[in-house]
């Protein structure tokens, strides 16, 4: 393999989690209405931010997280800075607990993700309630968080393989 191709490949590997995050935002903005809208779309970028904050913070630096969040704000039409704050705060908390998560069973990490999602949801709810001047209903938010936590094992397993076999190895 030529020097240039190798460099490109390295860049691609370094960018992969960020690109996945951007893709996650785009999928979130697409009109996915499973079961007539009864099943809310999971917050894919939250899974990506959580996973790489635990297993490879080098691959998803805070600036990438910021860009992913900002893109989501711009696409959903919410107040700017909302999702960057939610994602960065999640990353902050997760990275402070990183030593605990590393080498643990996936079940434990899953429970950790549950707590992280609850924290993210709490920030989201607090900010939006403050901004609208009323306590907002939380039913849909809880459903969406439940959907996000429910898909974590599947995406976690896929990302694990991707990270271990493609991004770090070879």
């Amino acid at each position: 393999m030529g020097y240039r191709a190798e460099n490109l490949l390295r860049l691609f590997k370094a960018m992969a989690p960020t690109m996945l995050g951007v893709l996650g935002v785009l999928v979130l903005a697409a009109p996915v209405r499973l079961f007539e809208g009864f099943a809310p779309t999971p917050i894919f970028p939250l899974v990506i931010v959580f996973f790489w904050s635990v297993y490879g913070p080098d691959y998803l630096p805070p600036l990438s997280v910021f860009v992913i969040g900002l893109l989501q704000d711009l696409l959903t039409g919410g107040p700017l800075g909302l999702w960057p704050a939610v994602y960065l705060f999640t990353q902050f908390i997760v990275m402070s607990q990183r030593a605990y998560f590393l080498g643990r069973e996936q079940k434990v990490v899953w429970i950790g993700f549950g707590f992280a999602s609850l924290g993210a949801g709490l920030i989201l709810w607090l900010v939006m309630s403050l901004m609208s001047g009323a306590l907002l209903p939380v039913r849909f938010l809880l459903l969406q968080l439940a959907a996000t936590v429910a898909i974590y094992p599947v995406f976690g397993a896929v990302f694990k393989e991707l990270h271990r076999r493609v991004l770090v190895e070879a």
Partner: protein
Amino acid sequence: MDYLGQDRREGLGRKAHSRFVLILLILVSVLLLLSSLYSAQASVFKKAREGVIDAASPVLSLLSGPINYVNGVAGSIGDYFNVMEQNKALREENAELRQWMNEALELRETVASYDALQGYVAPPTAQPISAFVIGEANDAFARSMIVNAGRANNVEVGQAVVDASGLVGRIVEAGGSASRVLLLTDIQSRIPVYIEGADVEGILVGNTRSNPVISFTAGSDEAVTEPGQRVLTSGAGGALPRGLPIGVVASQRRNDIVVDLYANYARTRMVRVINYAFPAIEPEAPADAAAAAGAQTGEQTADAPQPPAEG
């Protein structure tokens, strides 16, 4: 066994635990949030939003192909199970609609004869712009959709968006080839409405629940409504044309009237943006007249007449 994350290779960020950058960016986000509280309509933010919608619209259109296919399959599986029920309901509805059609045809003839009798000036007719929903905010607290028509198709901020069943929302951002529709359920949505037969006007306020609520200005009389009465846009304030169907009254708790929307946001796919020019007083001629009048009396200014703002 699990060596994930144990070894350091180069990713995008070399200084892996740059807490400093992380905390800095959190601060930047919070500052952004605070600033968007006060300058949500700042032109920089607006340009950025419109630019992103425009840039994302081809990708979203591409994504919506397979998504619609999957939704179609999932939807038709559901349909197989209750096809008999639906058939019956549709037959009943059809019979009812036929009655209405006959009545409407009669009325049309009557109205046409009256029109012919009088020097009647019809209000300007709306020019609908058809568009597909290519994106939506799948967010707990933001309710909006992205449609694939923009300024190039004469879409402008403030126009009403309807689908086959009724009002969907109104345009809040218009990019070049895509625009954002704020749905009636969003917490920022405020639509002037009236209730047919109840003789009350109010503002339909979104609250992120599926049923928005009509609220009234403080000190207004107690409204008396019955469930099932139709709710339509009132056209007050000159924002939306009068008479677009929104939904029916579901229930009333004191002065809060809960509205059952006609629009089913889980099924909204094709919409029409209503490009409606309000019958406004021509600004130039009256301004000249006013200027002339002002010159005569020496008191009046030559301001263009303000449209009546009520509601």
